[in-house]
């Protein structure tokens, strides 16, 4: 088992290497120059030259890459071209914000999906199933940002119950922090639950058709035991994979929701850095996001043996 995970861990290295090369080259092939972005319409060719030299933008791309890579392996991601702040620190603090929103959202979405997906499967083709399935389809068809805007209009503007811009760290003020979390978390939960729920429902339906469910019923077990002790653990196995994907992709890709709710998260950092052609920051964030994605999915895989005893033996 440990060999399996060690292997998975080692596989991260070539993945990330590929990410770095791609990002590095693509960023430099895209027209647009960080220096120009910084100076705007001010004419100062001497300053432009000087800044390009400082940022070593005039050297051949391979030389720049090797130079950058040598530092990255010591976790020195350099400094932002734009703000001059250390990239690594910036990423960590931004990740904190994103992780807070995403973990809460995905956890809630998973709980909702499991509870209602199981319920829907159990009540297949009844009114409650139909209602739940319709809501799930609705959730799948509305993009998160749309939900976000709707929430802002209702709870921010009309009712004025909750703040819609900004972020407060839970370490500073827990109650205020939660207020800022409510709307973005709700938006993500609404957008993420649908797909998960549909998956839980169809998996549960499959599981409920299995012989061991019939056998459990034949032993005289109550429906609740059948559903939660016998069906659910089996449903969880594929569900956990999907939750892992959602977690991984949202940690790096919640940019839209972060923009709508003005959360200083990792996704927004990436988007803004791309627009500002902040090469160093984009490179750092991309490798960071890729690493998060791979690691989150690795961690999810490590959950498998807990959920499925068959994996323990195989690996």
């Amino acid at each position, binding site marked *: 088992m440990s060999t399996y995970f060690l*292997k998975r861990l080692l596989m991260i290295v070539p993945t990330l290497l590929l990410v770095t090369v791609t990002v590095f080259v693509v960023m430099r092939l895209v027209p647009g120059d960080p220096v120009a972005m910084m100076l705007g319409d001010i004419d100062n060719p001497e300053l432009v030259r000087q800044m390009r030299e400082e940022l070593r933008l005039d050297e051949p791309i391979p030389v720049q890459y090797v130079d950058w890579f040598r530092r990255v392996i010591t976790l020195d991601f350099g400094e932002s071209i734009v703000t001059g702040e250390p990239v690594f620190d910036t990423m960590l603090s931004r990740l904190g914000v994103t992780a807070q929103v995403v973990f809460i959202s995905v956890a809630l979405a998973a709980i909702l999906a499991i509870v209602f997906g199981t319920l829907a499967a159990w009540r297949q083709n009844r009114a409650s199933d139909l209602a739940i399935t319709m809501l799930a389809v609705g959730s799948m068809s509305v993009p998160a940002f749309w939900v976000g805007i709707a929430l802002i209009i209702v709870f921010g503007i009309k009712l004025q119950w909750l703040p819609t811009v900004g972020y407060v760290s839970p370490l500073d003020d827990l109650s205020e922090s939660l207020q800022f979390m409510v709307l973005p978390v709700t938006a993500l939960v609404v957008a993420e639950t649908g797909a998960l729920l549909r998956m839980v429902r169809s998996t549960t339906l499959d599981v409920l058709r299995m012989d061991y469910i019939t056998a459990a019923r*034949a032993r*005289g077990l109550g429906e609740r035991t059948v559903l939660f002790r016998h069906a659910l653990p*089996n449903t969880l196995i594929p569900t956990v994979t999907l939750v892992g994907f959602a977690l991984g992709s949202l940690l790096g890709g919640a940019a839209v929701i972060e923009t709508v709710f003005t959360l200083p998260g990792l996704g927004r950092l990436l988007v803004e850095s791309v627009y500002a052609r902040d090469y160093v920051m984009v490179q750092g964030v991309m490798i960071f996001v890729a690493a998060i994605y791979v690691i989150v999915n690795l961690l999810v895989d490590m959950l498998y043996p807990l959920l499925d005893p068959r994996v323990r033996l195989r690996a």
Partner: protein
Amino acid sequence: MNGAATILQVEDVSVSFGANAPRVLDGVSLQLAAGKVLAIVGESGSGKTLLARSIIGLLPPGAMVRSGRIELLGQDLTGLPGAAMRKLRGDQVSMIFQEPQVSLNPVVRIGRQLTEAAIERRVLTPDAARRRALDLLERVKIPDPADVMKRYPHELSGGMCQRVMIAAALMLEPALLIADEPTTALDCAVQRDVLEVMLEAARREDTAVLLISHDLGLVAGHADDVLVLKAGSLVEKRAARDILASPAADYTRELLEAATVARPASPRDVGSNPVCTVDGVTIDYPVRRDWPWQEQRFHRAVDNVSLDIRRGETVAVVGESGSGKTTLGMAILGLVAPTGGTIMVDGEPVSTDPRRTRRFTQLVFQNPYAALSPRKTVRESVAEPLLVDRSADAVSVAARTRAMLDDVGLPAALDDRRPHELSGGQRQRVSIARALITQPGLVIADEPVSALDVTIQAQILGLFARLQASHGFACLFVTHDLGVVEAVADRVVVLKQGRVVESGDTQAVFANPRHAYTRELLTAMPVLQPDTGSGFHIVNRHFGGVSP
């Protein structure tokens, strides 16, 4: 019947899928007393499983009891609310299923699956439930029950799982145990054991048993009464002894005949030159390595096997799953390269170059449904091998195809059907026609009848024998079913863990098996033999002596 209390009384029960659909179970009645065993026998689609499930109230979605009464211990179960029915399950009636490994929840430990119902319903304390479970496991002859309690289903063999299922079904001392094909999915060596263990355990608890099976031969010896179902209707219901001795209905007789071993009528015209020689063949599969620098290890699937097959002859390779019998067939086809030894087919070494070998050697698959392309019609599927070599013109291809289909007994009306529009037997006929159309010298038949009902099995085996006589091909018959071996094979090779443990003329081997394993296999299989009159009797084989 014989004084014991009536446990189950089924009166005129009909079942259908939907209110207006045709009845898939039509007016069946039966009666079962405590401690008795009633066998319900029928082929697939006869409604035997629906009958069982309607008793325990676990009909598949959509199916419903349309009429009739089902009385368990005097209580009518039809129309009983779900909660009340649930109380009866496990407690008064429980059930064992065909596939033990999928009937146990893969992610729940054996111990909990055994005890949870008793604990949940507060029938037993956790401690008492555990003691009862251990006791039952012992009774179904599971070694080290305490250890098994801690295991997960996938860590046990199929036979062990079924024993666990039996124990679980008996936990709450039910009055009625329904066993739906309890041994069909098990390796043949353990089938009889499991069946006997189940009946023995039930007898000790004075539990009535409803034993459902497609194999009249297997169950007739164990049941007090036998009920034969066909297409949802009762054919015949008699005491087991009577039904063997003097089957009343034609259908019953048909079932019995199918289960009877029919030896080849006369020795076949067997050539002296082998068309296929397997000499000291060893086949290793590489075991997956964790790291590229690790030493490559191998799993030996076939270990130093030698055999030859002569023209017009059928050689059976017998063994359980994992014995290497299928791998050997693949090697003769040239699909797997042997690690050591040689395989000669038609005088030439088998090469993995497919062109030559595979025209001489053809394969008939176990599951014809999977082996036939769902998009091709019968005609297209059968003609396909001819079209591979472009020498044949369209007219002669059509003629040869039609002639071949005639040979396997498929009427022209079926020519344009696709696999899903055919029955299982018809599909296997198509599969055989496709294999034989190129006039192969050697046919590898890999469990060609194991997916079929017994009566169909008999038909296909008959067809096979007839075709072999007329076409003269040699055949390597891969199977786990000794009954089939006895019916078709001139010679038999018994494989165990990749090694030949015994080989020789079928009759000689069956009459006097020398190896313990062969003996075990043969003992496990009761044989139904026709009486001199119109009846049948069961012969249980016993062999003395010790293997060398």
